[in-house]
């Protein structure tokens, strides 16, 4: 399935990016440019909706590193509803200490900055 990344900003400055399809090195720049857009708009928090993301290579992880470096290490980065294999990669690479994984979207927690 083709990769897609769609950014939505809440009035409070929460950047919600919905990812779907297969995220490999050939499309990672599309993801990176959505992150760039979010930071240009002054995002104070980053939320990745990944339920329909079926594959993620390390190129995707590198974009997360980029996001963290761009937004500052105190900005929370949420990953919502990752599929099992993607969750495994996030865990195996030690990213669990830098991102918050949620099993479901929790508006009260996510949208109050």
């Amino acid at each position: 399935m083709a990769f897609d990344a769609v950014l939505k900003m809440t009035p409070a400055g929460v950047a919600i990016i919905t990812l779907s399809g297969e995220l490999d090195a050939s499309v990672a720049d599309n993801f990176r440019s959505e992150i760039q857009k979010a930071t240009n708009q002054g995002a104070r928090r980053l939320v990745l909706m990944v339920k329909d993301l079926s594959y993620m290579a390390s190129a995707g992880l590198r974009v997360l590193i980029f996001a963290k470096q761009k937004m500052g290490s105190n900005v929370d980065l949420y990953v919502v509803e990752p599929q099992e294999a993607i969750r495994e990669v996030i865990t195996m690479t030690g990213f669990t200490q830098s991102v918050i994984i949620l099993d479901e979207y929790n508006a009260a927690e996510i949208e109050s900055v």
Partner: protein
Amino acid sequence: MDALTLPGTLDSLTAIREFVGEMGENAGLDRKALYRLKLAVDEIATNIVTHGYEAAGLQGEIVISSRLAPEALTIQLEDTSQEYNPLGLEKPDTLDKPIGERPIGGLGVFLAVRGVDEFRYEHVNGRNLHTFTVKIPSSQSQSS
């Protein structure tokens, strides 16, 4: 033996994963093992394209082939890019660092090596050979 020749560009990654997917399903790999194998091959193919070909100003092909034996499935990537041994880069010592403080790189090779039962690199007659082997479930008492 099945084989496929593709241009050494990032646009070939989808076809590479589809090839691995088909071979892995034929071999009876479970979902988890198949995902790891796809990821492993994709990561190394990405390195071949970006480091071996593009960064070196070279162009060429990637040949992906598959061999199925009763006890194991072997996938091989063959290319004529710059000699590039990924081993030695496979254990980033920064996995315990917050991601904002990490250097970028090394993760792909780490995932590749961890994703299969055996990973081998050889440079033979000007060609890079990357070989990935996974055991087939029926030959193991317990698949992990």
